[in-house]
Each structure stands twice: as C-alpha cells, then as structure tokens.
C-alpha cells in the first residue's frame, strides 16, 4: 500500500514547491479567490503546505478549494495545487479534522451510494415523467462492496 504521506512527499518533492515563482497565476485563476478576496488565496495556501503544515491542517481554508483545476492547468512550473490540497486534506483527516458539512455528505454516500438523498417514493415521481426507476439506494451488494473498499477505520472516521 502506498502510504498517503509517501504520496504527498512525492508530489511535493517531484514537483518541488520551491519551484513556485510567486507569479500568482493560481490565485488569479481561482474562482474561490475571486469570490472570497482576502480570505482564500491558493498561492499562500501552497506556501503554508511547505512552511507551516501543522497550522494549515487546522484551518478551514484547506477545505474550500472547489477542485476546478484552473490553477493546475495554468501553473507555469507544473505544480499541481489541486491534487496537493486533496492530499493535504488526507493528513488533516488522519488527525480527525473533517469539517461537518463534507462529513455529512460522505455519510450519505456510504449509506445510499449517492451524494444526494433520494426519497422512498421518488421513483413514482420519475415514472410520471416516463423515467425508469433508480431506487432509494443503489443495490445492497454494491453498498456492501463500497463500504468494504472504504474500510472500517474510515467509516468510523465519518461516523458512518
């Protein structure tokens, strides 16, 4: 098993965060930075990954990236901020720091196999529009498989 920490170390090492030339292409491309000026800034977030990781793992900003990939597409140094933020969140998650909103959606995914909950009578409504049934959850065997792949430890981490 590739340890997440190894993967993070490799991404950080191979793409060398020190290659960042502070051009700000990431922040200039970022929809979150546009919507939340002064609050969200991927360029500074990247600096904190290498300079102040323990503090970053406690921060809310780490969970704000909307994974649109514009920064990754445009970084002239080939740094992949989007994937780095996802991996950094893995470290926060290991410390038990998963914000409540994302946690609730993941619990729904582990319960029903979908991120949006489906009411029991929903198929009747779909039927009225000539659409085939989808069921309130995906098949029980599929739910069992996905829970097994995700594993007991992680299910506990989500309280799922």
């Amino acid at each position, binding site marked *: 098993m590739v340890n997440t920490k190894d993967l993070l170390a490799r991404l950080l090492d191979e793409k060398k965060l020190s290659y960042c030339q502070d051009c700000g292409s990431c922040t200039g491309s970022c929809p979150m930075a546009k919507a939340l000026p002064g609050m969200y800034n991927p360029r500074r977030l990247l600096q904190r990954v290498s300079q102040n990781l323990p503090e970053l793992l406690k921060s809310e900003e780490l969970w704000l990236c909307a*994974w649109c990939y514009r920064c990754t597409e445009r970084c002239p140094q080939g740094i992949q901020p989007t994937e780095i933020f996802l991996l950094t969140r893995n470290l926060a998650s290991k410390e038990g720091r998963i914000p409540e909103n994302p946690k609730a959606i993941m619990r729904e995914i582990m319960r029903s196999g979908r991120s949006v909950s489906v009411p029991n009578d929903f198929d009747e409504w*779909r039927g009225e529009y000539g659409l085939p049934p989808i069921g309130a959850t995906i098949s029980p065997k599929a739910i069992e498989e996905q829970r097994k792949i995700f594993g007991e430890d992680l299910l506990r981490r989500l309280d799922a």
Partner: protein
Amino acid sequence: MTEYLLFPGCVASVRELGYEMAMRAVFKRLDVNLRQRDDFNCCMPACLVHSVDYERGLALTSRNLAIAEQEDLPLMTLCSSCFGNLSRAKYLLDHNPEIKEDVNKLLGEVGREYKGKVRIEHVVTSLYKDYSPDGLRELSVKPLTGLRAAPFYGCHLFLPQRYSGFDDAEFPQKLDRLIESTGATSIDYHEKTACCIGCGSFFGKVSEEAGLKLAETILDDVKESGADAIVATCPFCMMQLEVGQIKLKESKGKEYGIPVIHFVDVLGLSMGVKPEELGLDLRRVDVTPLLKRLNRI
C-alpha cells in the same frame, strides 16, 4: 447500433429530471441504446472522499470503471463532475502503475479489477465525437435560427486537459460549434468558461455564498451579452445558475429571467423533438416566452 453504459449520477437523476428526459429523448431519436445497471456507486467526488483517503477514494471511483470494463461498453455520464472524477481516476491509474496496483489490491477484496481499457464519455463529448457538428447540422430539420445562446462550459468537461482530453483548456470552442450546428448563434461573453463552484466546495455557508457571488457575476455578464438563454453542459451548473436567479431575486430584487437549458435541449428542439418531451416545463426559470418567440409552442 451505438451503445453506452449510462452512468446516471445523482444530481441529474434526482435534481435535474428535465435534463435526463431531454437526454433520453435525443438519444432515442438518434437510435443510441443506453444500458443501465443498479450497482454503480457514487463517482466519489475528489473534493470529498479522495480528500479523506486518496487511494480508497480512487478505488471506489475505479470500481465503476471496472464494472464498465466487464460490460465491455463505454461509459456515458450526464454530469461533468462524474465525468471529471471518472476521467481523473483513469488518468491517475493509467499513468501511475504503483497506484493502479494498490487500487487493484483494494478492488480485489471485492472480486474486481481495473484493467485500463474503459472509455469514458460525457453526453456532450459523445455527441461531438460520434456525430460531429457537421453531422448534427444534417439532423437539424428545424434549425433554431434566431436563438442567441450563451454557451457555459463548466469545468470538468475540459479541465484539466490532461484528464478530460476534450477541448482546449484556455479557449474551448466545441460547445460553440455544437450550438451553431443547430442553427442557433453562439454568443461570446467574458464568463463563458467560468466556474460556478456547484460541484466542488461543500464547506456550507461560506461555499454557498461564494457560489451565489459567482452566479451573480456570470448572470450579469450573460444579461449584458444580450443572450436569450444559457446553454450548459453540467447539471450542477444548471442548478447553480437557476437557483442563483431565484435567490438573487429574493435578496436583491434582481430579475434576470434567463432560461438555463442544456445542449441536448437545443439539439432536441432543432431535431423537432417536442418541448414537453425535453422536460422543458421542469426548468426553474420559465422557458415559455423563449419557446413562443422561437415558434416552438
């Protein structure tokens, strides 16, 4: 006969039934068979499950790819976020043998394996590749002359280019070409390739407010461009830009009245499919005035 394995996703099949109806009506006309299964799990958004555990997130996404390989059919998603997640998993596994090995160890525990031969398409990419704009123009028996459409690309249909491989990352053109193939005019505007934050940020109030702020910028720009409607590719974008109009009316008294439809709606209308078959009466922003002006009702 062309055949796809449909990856229904949750937003389209639960929140955007109109889009699903239009998609089914159009593919029925095109004689494309859509096979279905009841055991796909969620595409496992990278911003959620992969954020908690990278490998297990990838394994869960790849379980869907393994199922498609067993069926020996290309996958087709309705949602750009599903398309993005599935394409990302395929790219990461195909380019990193050690990650593929680890993911397959996890899949092996449930008797599955990812080999790497699956093809992943989105409704829009499949239409572009299988028919091409020229091919669709020939099918357009009732061209939508006079419709000024604002294409809204969303993100994961074309970003990042290395995962999706569909269009140019800075100046995507393919949705414009598809829209033009129906006889409509594709309007150029600044926010054409903006992000709506619909599928990616689940932090709660902060994310929602950020999404609404971007929706306002996008809607203001579309209004200024003089477009009649936004033509989107992703159900998340559709939801954000429709619900955004409702919220901005409540909070700021802004009246946009800009219908948000999908490319399959435009294609369907140009092929002579009736508006009700396309579920256009299910749209949150009334499409009736536009349909009247285009003599479709």
